[in-house]
């Protein structure tokens, strides 16, 4: 059984008086520990696909099952728990300290605020963003925002991490370390589903899929996916982390 199974999913959006098909009859399976990247131009439907995969949005047609259960039914108990969804671009609108943001999700699991903060600190350390803990969200740069978002998504030890365009707004030099981080997460058995707007950001992916006009195309030939250098894989700071 796949970890996530998307079957014949379609999603439309109203656009003025018309509607736009964002995702058309897409099927996709993701196995535990896999790093899958979806690549496409704008309006290709890649973000919508990721939002549907995470359960943030429900498809009009087709089914999504996660760990064998219909995601439409179990969304509220899975999203943010077994599935971590990263919002990279938007967290900057948050006020308050980064550590508070990371710790907030844990409160729902009946963790005390004090413990949640401590755990938040560990999570930030695990993504190499421990220096950001006492900063405010709007003081972070693109790469830091992405790392913080990953940290808070990992707080509940999800089985699947969904991250939309992790490298968007991230300085070129900082992209590779970020992709390595995602690779390392996948290698520690948390499946990762990510999207990318350019081919350079596919590095490290086990599979790279192209989406065009809402339809999933063939897998990119492995040759087009730039591999990360071997020594880099798993080279995150700190020791082994629990997720």
């Amino acid at each position: 059984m796949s970890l996530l199974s998307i079957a014949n999913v379609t999603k439309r959006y109203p656009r003025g008086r018309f509607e736009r098909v964002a995702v058309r009859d897409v099927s996709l399976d993701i196995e535990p520990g896999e790093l899958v990247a979806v690549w496409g131009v704008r309006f290709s439907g890649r973000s919508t696909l990721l939002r549907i995969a995470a359960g943030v949005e429900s498809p009009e047609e087709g089914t999504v099952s996660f760990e064998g259960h219909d995601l439409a039914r179990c969304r509220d108990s899975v999203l943010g728990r077994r599935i971590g969804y990263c919002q990279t671009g938007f967290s900057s609108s948050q006020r308050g300290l980064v550590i508070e943001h990371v710790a907030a999700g844990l409160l729902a699991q009946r963790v005390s605020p004090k413990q949640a903060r401590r755990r938040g600190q560990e999570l930030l350390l695990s993504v190499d963003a421990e220096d950001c803990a006492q900063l405010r969200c709007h003081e972070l740069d693109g790469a830091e925002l992405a790392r913080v978002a990953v940290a808070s998504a990992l707080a509940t030890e999800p089985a699947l991490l969904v991250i939309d365009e992790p490298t968007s707004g991230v300085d070129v030099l900082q992209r590779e370390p970020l992709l390595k981080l995602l690779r390392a997460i996948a290698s520690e058995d948390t499946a990762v589903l990510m999207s990318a707007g350019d081919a350079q950001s596919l590095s490290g992916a086990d599979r790279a899929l192209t989406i065009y006009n809402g339809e999933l195309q063939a897998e990119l030939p492995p040759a087009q996916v730039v591999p990360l250098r071997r020594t880099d894989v798993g080279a995150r700071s700190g020791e082994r982390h629990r997720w």
Partner: protein
Amino acid sequence: MRLSGHIYLYGRRLRTRPVQELLAGVGIAIGVALVFAVQVANSSITDASSAIVRGIAGKATLQLRARDATGFDEAVLQRVERLPGVTSAAPIVDENASLVGHDGRRVAIDLASAAPSLLALDGSITHTISLRDLSRGGVILPSATAHALGLQSASSPDGALPHVQLDVRGRATSVAVVAVLGPEAIGALSGAMAAIAPLDFVQRIDGLSGRVTRILVTTAPGKGATVRRELTALAAGRLTVAGADQDVALLEQAVAPNTEATGFFVLVSAIVGLLLAFNAMLLTVPERRRTMADLRMQGVRPLQLAKMLLFQAVCLGVVASLLGLAAGDFLSRTIFHATPTYLSAAFPLGTQTVIGLKPLVLSFAGGVLATCLAAAPPLLDLRRNRAVDAVYFEDGEPGQALGRSARLRLLIAACVLILVTSGPLLVWPSAIVPATIGVAVATLLAIPFAFQLVVRVAAHAAASSARLNMLTVAVRALRGTTVRSLALAATGAIAVFGCVVAEDSHNDLLHGLYRDYSQYVSTADLWVVGADDDLATNSFQAGRLPARISALPGVGAVRSYQGGFLDFDGRRVWIIARAASTPAPIPASQLVQGALTTATARLRAGGWITVSQQLAEAEHLHVGERLTLPTPSGPHAYRMAATTTNLGWSAGAIIINDYDYRSAWQTADPSALEVSARPGANIPTLERAIVAVLGPGSALAVQTSGARAAQADVLAREGLSRMSQITRLLMIAAALALAAAIGAGIWQRRSALAALRIHSFTPWQLRAVLTFESVLVLGTGALVGALAGVYGHLLCDRYLRLTTGFPAPFAVGGFHTVQTILLIVGGALIVLAIPAYVASQAPPQLALQD
């Protein structure tokens, strides 16, 4: 989520958005304060009075009372005491009187006697009034009365007792104050305007030797009904048998119109408060929604989020409502703390603010509930078919402009609502509350349409000239913040509506009352009457006074005027007995049913009376039919010649011929003398001459009819002052709250304003944009509110006339309406000038990212 988690999240919210939370809290607190203060002030009148009545009556459950001020033979006491089932009986003489302090301060009081037998009744008065005090031959004053007279303590440093002048039944006597008793001694009674003295002392002062006005009776357990029957037999139709606390019920009846009228304001205040809170909460909605979306992504379940929202709303609601209660308590003790003096002629009144449980619970729970309601909109994001992070994909403020058809539908709904709620008024004039709520809600519904209309007119006007470009920009900016603008306009509309209705009805009422009083007193040039006796209900022994006044040069006629109160069918009715020779015994403007000439002729002929419309309706009486009155000499039937308004006395009034009055009440004591001057006589000279005739020992005063009407007007204004105070407070609160809400909106837009600055808008241009925006929003509200207010005013006047019987001729208060609008809109704009000025200077950095 654990409680600590909820507290942590709320703490985080408070730290990051303190101003938003403060604004929301202030809006709620204002609403709660207004509602609470009005309720407390209202219930205090009857509650304080009830405390006094109980303080005196103690364990007594029944009373036998005289139907007029001259009382009945005290020998009845022995007969009452002998009745089986009576455990004790205490005689009381009470009388309306005035005390005059050294510096001329006058206080209208209830002079009550206390005999040693009163001690057996075990009221609060009896715990502390010692026999020694009672035997010293002076009066005991509650601390409030002493305070009103300017007396500091009962005895001066040299041990001599202070003296005050006691005016009763037309005579002025100097009496010693033997004790001043505060709340620690006599509880609520200390707030009473009263004087307590030994029975024989009061009888002597009153000239009522051997007579009492009331006997309070305590019965053995289970014997109440028996004793009541025996007392009724004893009374033989000439005395009233009633519960010991009958005064409280009668007072409640008398203040009911006042309570209802203020109840209407409670309603308006509550709506305004709720809207203010809603507005303030609306400012926090986008941010709350984002927080909710973020938390949901982090695995917080919808139910937990709903709990979180509820927890935060309850926290805010509890704190804000508590603050509101404190502010309301302050208001009710200060600004609203005015006991309507006009009632003191007929009832024992207290000055205490009594906080009942009901207003407390109602206001508090209302405040918390309103907060929860206002906090609810973000819950819409939890709907199943919504994307979890939908909020991030919306532009601008939450919720965009309502569609054209939606606006039109709301307008139609408003019209239908007015028709549906106002329709029943044609049949049941008392259905005023649903009608008013209908108009208020319709006002809200009409706002979107009106707003669009105003914006369109403004856009059209702006298009005509490039000079009005800033108006164009303002109009465009308003499109983006529609829901909030609508909510603000609605708040302004409700505030203006409430103020216009209140202020205009209030003015109509004052106008009507003044017209009534001036006609009523215009029957004589000069009135000789007790100085504080505004309704001329306290009788005095005239002796040879009428004859001596008649002998004065310039006097045409002296007529005796008799008046008093009669407890009748659960009301304390005002009885006006006028001589047949009185030029116009019925004030023409106050006639409701019947022909004036016929009615006047019948009244003069005798056997006929006029009755207040409400009283007639309560008795199911029509013109020409008979009404039996429980007079001091037994039941007497009179035919009804006409119906009138209540002549300004809320419990109703009856005009009767003085011949009929004398035979039924068996007294010739007048309560006033009407003096008509000969043509060409100099009134001031005559006035001085009459004062000379009265002499120094008299407690009577001489007033021209004009002065008397003016005095009544002052009294009416005072009695209705709460209405205008509420209006004023409502206006101030509305102006401040609107300014705060608009100001907060402007503040949130500073980065957008900074961007406009970079686009070369000068601070002056930005200020013009902000001013235009505010004027359009507030102006729409004011316009709709004023229109609805005129209609509400019409309804309210109709209610006053038909249900309460007060004279309130309808007149559109154009000037007052404009004044109200200017005060609210202008006040808000002045307060807004500060945030607008600061925001217009927003540093350009705000638009940049660094």
